[in-house]
């Protein structure tokens, strides 16, 4: 979901007339976001090996799933629902195709409240994604709920509500899209990511200061000498407070220094 918001931020500075064009293309990207994200993870997997499919496998699997989705649905229908569809085909059917339809729709209309319209569309995307993610779970068994009943129920409900928000955004006049900025989100996220990745190998003393300084780049007002001093003091304070006063187990020093 983080990724989808990141992509949305592209569609801000365009003129109102061209809005639906930009909006439509962003929704199109959103429609393929899960496939693209899996590809990115697979590419990262080339550098740091891990389990999962390789990049080429990912591309070929999704490409074929996207192209055979409709025929295989028809085939399944003909077979009386006996054959089961692969997860990739289901992704195409449940998530990607409906969103492509929404993108086409976006291209045709000019929403009177873009803020609500695009908000509603993203909620629909989340709902569709959840419907796909819970499609492998068991449904109702007699009177008792299956694992998938509630997620699907809420997924459908959110789909409906998202659509309602979007439709109202098309029909009734309302707010324009707010402007997105990239500097704050980027550096705050980067600081958080740095903390997460490095806390175990590098320890709190190194990572605390590094994250502090990275986050500080996010503001134009930062004065570096001041930030450095406060960062050092704060990291030191945290290194005393968390492990010693509160007794939370936390690595302080880089692992290679300890060994």
């Amino acid at each position, binding site marked *: 979901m983080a990724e989808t918001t990141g992509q949305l931020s592209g569609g801000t500075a365009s003129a109102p007339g061209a809005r639906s064009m930009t909006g439509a293309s962003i929704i199109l990207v959103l429609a393929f976001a899960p496939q693209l994200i899996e590809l990115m993870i697979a590419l990262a997997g080339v550098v*740091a090996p891990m389990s999962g499919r390789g990049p080429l496998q990912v591309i070929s699997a999704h490409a074929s799933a996207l192209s055979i989705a409709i025929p295989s649905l028809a085939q399944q229908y003909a077979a009386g629902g006996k054959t089961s569809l692969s997860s990739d085909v289901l992704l195409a059917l449940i998530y990607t195709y409906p969103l492509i339809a929404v993108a086409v729709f976006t291209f045709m209309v000019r929403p009177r409240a873009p803020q609500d319209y695009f908000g509603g569309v993203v909620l629909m995307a989340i709902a569709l994604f959840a419907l796909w993610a819970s499609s492998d779970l068991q449904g109702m068994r007699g009177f008792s709920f299956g694992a998938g009943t509630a997620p699907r129920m809420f997924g459908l409900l959110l789909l409906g509500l998202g659509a309602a928000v979007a439709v109202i955004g098309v029909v009734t006049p309302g707010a324009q899209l707010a402007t997105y900025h990239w500097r704050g989100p980027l550096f705050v996220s980067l600081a958080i990511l740095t903390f*997460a990745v*490095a806390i175990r*190998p590098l320890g709190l003393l190194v990572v605390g200061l590094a994250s502090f300084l990275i986050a500080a780049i996010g503001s134009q007002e930062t004065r570096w000498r001041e930030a450095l001093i406060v960062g050092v003091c704060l990291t030191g304070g945290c290194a005393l407070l968390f492990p010693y006063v509160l007794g939370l187990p936390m690595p302080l020093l880089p692992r290679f220094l300890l060994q």
Partner: protein
Amino acid sequence: MSWCGRALSVGWLPVIAGLLAGVGVATTPAKAQNYPTRSITMIVPFAAGGPTDVIARIVTGHMAQTLGQSIIIENVVGAGGTTATARAARATNDGYTLITGHMGTHAAAVPLYPNLAYHPERDFEPVALLAGTPILILARKDFAPKDTKEFVDYVKANTEKVNAAHAGVGSVSHVSCQLLNSILDVKPVGVPFNGTGPAMNALVGGQVDYMCDQIVNAVPQINAGTIKAYAIATPERNPALPNVPTTTEAGLPKFQAQAWNAIFAPKGTPAPIIAKLNAAAAKALDDEGVRKRLLELGSVIPGAADRTPEALAALVKAEVAKWTAVLKPAS
């Protein structure tokens, strides 16, 4: 993200291993002889204060005196204890990381979790059996059947109507009730709760009909008459509940279940270390103070024959087979 963290941490390992290789190999026998030279970490895969945690704390408290080093308990919770157990299986096998597993993590988890990241028999060295917590058949106080015999008949006759509570998938109360149901050959509706507290609340409140649970939680409620107990699933009566008959006495001899707790070490931990730990555990179980506290909890302390690592290995093997037979058809 986790894989980045893992990649980095793995990246350091060869370097460290390389640095320590020469020293490490030479000192291994000496290490086992002097063991332990620093504090030992005991992973408990459940929250502090739970039955397994309490037993582990009572026994390791005494073991630490014998071994001359402190034993630090680390409670790691999640996914029915399997997260922590998987971590213990991957830990360095030098005797400084141990785990107190129980019936769930080291037996019932095998059929319950198809993607289990460890196998209790293959990935661990059994160290010592600590204590077992007997399991009781409990019912709400106004449940119609008066004794076990009536209970069996009633449940068989009214399978469609009765509700059995349990404390969540994989919990002791869940798996032991599955065992009871398979013996009775009934499939009543199982009502899941989030932990023994809410399940007990529902039983006291009369929302559900019966459940199987460990003795620790149940004794005060039974004594106060807010719930009733039909039988205890051990060969002998328990001093904490002298009036509750055993399942054998009550005519249900096949229902034998105990939530046993035992210490395990990662596979490949040197035998002398295992022997030392086993001896320390045995000494703890013979200590008057330890025995008194364990008995207060209603626990059953294993006899000398059941305390060896070999006996524990056999127990794990038998339990894995037993629970697989009970739980596989169910799931």
